[in-house]
């Protein structure tokens, strides 16, 4: 298994009830696999999963990227600063 850190903000922080979570994933899990896993466990996430972008270690990544042990993964919804 690999362990990654998830970071949630705004609507997703409230949907998951935490800003940070550590999760265990099967080796070889992709970004898309993580999104599907989260969607299966959280209806609010499932409803907006199509607009979520993944950032790994502060850089946006394609969803076919295989996640690595120790990755810090931010789930970024459309921004609304300013």
């Amino acid at each position, binding site marked *: 298994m690999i362990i990654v850190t998830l970071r949630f*903000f705004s*609507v997703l922080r409230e949907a998951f009830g935490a800003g940070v979570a550590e999760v265990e994933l099967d080796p070889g899990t992709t970004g898309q696999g993580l999104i599907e896993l989260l969607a299966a466990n959280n209806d609010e996430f499932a409803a907006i999963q199509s607009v979520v972008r993944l950032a790994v270690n502060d850089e946006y990544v394609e969803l076919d990227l295989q996640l690595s042990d120790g990755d810090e993964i931010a789930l970024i919804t459309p*921004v609304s600063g300013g």
Partner: protein
Amino acid sequence: MLQVWIDITDQPLNASEVHSFLYESNGGGVCVFAGVTRLETNGKISTSLSYEAYKSMALKEIRRLADEASQRWPILRAVVLHRIGTVVVGEPSVLIGVATAHRGPAFEATRFLIDELKKSVQIWKKESFEDGSQEWVAASWQDLD
């Protein structure tokens, strides 16, 4: 030599410090934009906006925008400050300023920086209304306003 002042802070933003920093560029045109918590939105009265940021990524994105602006306009100094936490009606949540030799590029680069910040920097806001309700400000990746 471009000098850039970037920050994401939970402290109130100080416009006079922003002006002073820009005036020290010795440029002839300084433009400062303030984004302020508005009283009324779609007929509802607001009390505050509450901001949160993914700070490490947001700071990198602001730096990238400043670099892009400096490649497009002859910027002497630039400032991008964003507040996080609660910002009540009448207080600024964002201050953006640019100093250039002449006024034209200062206006254009300031407009570019606030427009792009709203589209891409990893900051989110929740609006609180006078009636006690709260809601995350809806956005899409295509929003331009």
